[in-house]
């Protein structure tokens, strides 16, 4: 009559679609929340899931309901000392007595839910794509690498797989010998029986001996190894996308770059890094800091050290160029660069920077992004870079004022290019 059904194994993600619908519908709010997160949190925290909170009223599902006012009768349980005719003050905020009403008066708290790391990142980078990435991947002759793909029966001798071939031979021998061997055993048993009965000289025994001899001959004729037994390791070409990138972080650490500015720069680098991790298997990061001279440093030094003195931006660009030549040939590496500065530079150096970029660096890089942080007035470097920007589509520049600007700037820099 009643049926028991075990449903535990039948799909558990029935709500997945609805969840996606929810996320899509509130994309704008969630994206904003994601943006708030970046500006308000520590760098190392970034790459994990996120708790997103949206004001409840934004996602309410309205119904017609009664508002406050008018005359209401309320029945309540748990009377302690009221008697008929008592008059009491209204409770604060309409709680208690009011809650007998409809489901409409729910709390106005934020609606909080968890985004997984992947979802969080997706919101972050939605609509973004690396410039020219697709071009590079499609146009470049793909590198291939040999990959194992099981075994085949034909191949060249150097790929001969001995163990496999012998296994195959054993199997074939067993199969081919099975019939004669059974017959042989039967005949031998019969013969032994005849001989035991003293009939070893009969014609029947002779016939058996003949048979036995022929079976033995057949067994001996089963080849130990045959050409069909041979197995070769199969290797196929797998195209490997050029899946490595190097990211250069260039930062001015002269006296005018204070802690706040560095923080902004840090987040900018971090975002770029995260974005690259989505597209490349392997990413090298090179940190170059500079004041009047440039130096390659590790991450900690990069963000913590502070030098006084002037600024020569070209020193960093030169160093970057050297490093590319030495360690990151552009045929094998996708090269990205992000430069952060407060715009300060020696007047005479700026034209040199432009030349360096246009002639040496930009031809090698996928993209070069420059951000100017909290600069008051655009100075010579900005003006020179504007000329670079006009000359090269691979160059982008932005000014950042506060933490909240980072995310929009980032999107601006890497907006999907219409093909």
């Amino acid at each position, binding site marked *: 009559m009643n049926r*028991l059904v075990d449903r535990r194994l039948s799909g*558990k993600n*029935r709500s997945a679609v609805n969840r996606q619908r929810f996320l899509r519908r509130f994309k704008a709010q969630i994206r904003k929340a994601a943006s708030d997160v970046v500006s308000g949190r520590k760098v190392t925290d970034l790459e994990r899931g996120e708790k997103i909170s949206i004001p409840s009223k934004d996602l309410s599902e309205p*119904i*017609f309901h009664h508002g406050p006012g008018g005359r209401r009768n309320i029945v309540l349980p748990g009377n302690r000392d009221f008697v008929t005719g008592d008059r009491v003050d209204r409770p604060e905020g309409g709680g208690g007595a009011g809650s007998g009403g*409809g489901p409409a008066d729910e709390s106005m708290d934020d609606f909080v839910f968890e985004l997984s790391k992947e979802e969080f990142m997706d919101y972050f980078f939605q609509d973004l794509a690396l410039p020219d990435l697709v071009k590079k991947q499609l146009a470049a002759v793909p590198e291939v690498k040999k990959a194992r793909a099981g075994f085949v029966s034909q191949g060249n001798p150097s790929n001969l797989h001995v163990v496999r071939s012998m296994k195959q031979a054993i199997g074939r021998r067993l199969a081919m010998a099975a019939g004669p061997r059974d017959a042989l055993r039967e005949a031998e048993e019969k013969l032994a029986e005849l001989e035991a009965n003293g009939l070893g000289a009969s014609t029947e025994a002779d016939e058996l001996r003949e048979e036995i001899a022929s079976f033995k001959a057949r067994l001996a004729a089963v080849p130990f190894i045959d050409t069909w037994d041979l197995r070769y390791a199969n290797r196929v070409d797998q195209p490997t996308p050029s899946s490595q990138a190097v990211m250069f972080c260039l930062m001015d650490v002269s006296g005018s770059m204070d802690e706040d500015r560095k923080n902004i720069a840090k987040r900018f680098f971090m975002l770029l890094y995260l974005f690259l991790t989505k597209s490349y298997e392997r990413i090298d990061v090179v940190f170059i800091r500079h004041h009047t001279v440039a130096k390659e440093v590790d991450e900690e030094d990069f963000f913590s050290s502070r030098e006084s003195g002037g600024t020569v931006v070209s020193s960093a660009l030169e160093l970057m160029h050297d490093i590319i030549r030495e360690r990151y040939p552009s045929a094998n590496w996708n090269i990205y660069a992000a430069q952060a500065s407060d715009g300060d530079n020696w007047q005479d150096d700026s034209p040199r920077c432009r030349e360096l970029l246009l002639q040496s660096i930009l031809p090698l890089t996928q993209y070069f992004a420059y951000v100017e942080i909290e600069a008051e007035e655009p100075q010579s470097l900005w003006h020179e870079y504007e000329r670079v920007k006009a000359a090269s589509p691979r160059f982008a520049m932005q000014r950042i004022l506060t933490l909240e600007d980072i995310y929009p700037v980032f999107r601006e820099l890497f907006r999907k290019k219409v093909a």
Partner: protein
Amino acid sequence: MEPEMESDIAPIPPVASRQPLSEGSEWGFELLDRYDREIARVAAHYGLDTYPSQIEIITSEQMIDAYSSVGMPVGYHHWSYGKQFLATQKGYKRGQMGLAYEIVINSSPCIAYLMEENTMTMQALVIAHAAYGHNSFFKGNYLFRTWTDAEGILDYLVFARNYIADCEQRHGEEAVEELLDSCHALMNLGVDRYKRPTRLSMAKEQLRQTEREAYLQSQVNDLWRTLPTRQAAGQEKLAARFPSEPQENLLYFIEKNAPRLEPWQREIVRIVRKIAQYFYPQRQTQVMNEGWATFWHYTLLNHLYEEGKLTDGFMMEFLQSHTNVVYQPPYNSRHYNGINPYALGFAMFTDLRRICEHPTEEDHRWFPELAGSDWVKSLDFAMRNFKDESFIAQYLSPKLIRDFKLFTMVDDDTEEKLEVTAIHDDAGYRAVRQQLAEQYNLGNREPNIQVYEVDVFGNRSLSLRHYMHDRRPLGESTPEMLRHVARLWGYTVRIDSVDQDGVSHMTAVSEV
């Protein structure tokens, strides 16, 4: 038929006769089956009439899934279910709330979910509660018999899901989502309160759907074809009044008459309306339904215990859970969240049985026909023929009012203070009972909004009327709600709040 069972608290039978079905808390499929058979036997003994049940074992994750689609086993996709899912999942992960032990679906076969994490005791409780308690209520109660078709609902939900998925393909997810948003907002106004419904059936729906699309559109066109020619413009306005009487079912009215909806949009309005109608009885019988199911899991398991089929440990765990379910915090408690339907319903059915079996002098005065009657029959009658409002009005006894210490207050915005109007004393019983019944009248709880008039000869605007009750105004959601109505109607929509004397207190308009 006089059952042998006695009293609320079961006496412990002699140890020798006890042969428990199982010890320990582990459950297994064979064991579940044995429990189910035993419970079925006892349920039959009390004459519970049920649909066949399908008891499904699911994981907690699947339970969250089931939760988020308002218990519909098959649902169309909508973001609001995703929101529900996220909220439930969060609450569950943080341990802020346990999941309900059970969800039961009013269908035939009646589907009841058991969570695999539950102990044997809880599984038995849920089987008794859902597969016998709720199940017999679904089968017996007049509202469910009238309004829902247990045989057809699963098919209909499948039809609805496929139809809506198909519309998403053809017209885009966003268009469908907008439409569903507006329909969901008006769901409570999409039920017939007085008319009898037709039965749901997928076969019929599909057969007629194409015809209906064409037919509906032609109806609408007919209505709007009578649009003014120059001569007609002179007609008297009163004569042209449409609809001729106010209409309570706003979604139905929109489905049939909205001038600008496409056929597929009308079909979706219809789907939402049908589903609203399907859930309408549940909204009207919460106290009874839960009370009935709770009464029966309590009675059935106690019966088994008396027969020696359940261990003491089982009963301890069962009673602890049962007691939590039927707890009613007082109004001034931090945990107070309205009157607990399980507590009130369970108390009322238990009290009914008491009145039948051990009536007091007071009961004879209040319930002359009930006192001393066969309790099984009396309860069955009560279950079949009432909804919360009438059930309370009929059966809430003075003893229960005393037990719950119920009292009524009036909150009048023209008065500075709240007034206590009745408490649990001789003078107050009837008033308390009356007010409590009113509180469960959906007609009072939700604003009474009706379709009043369509300006057929003018700008096609739709006028709604809110008939005020006790001067209660509409809430702050009204402008947004009007936008939803206007989206469906396609032209300007206005609403007037009028009091008993026809005086308008508030008007809101949403232009298109």
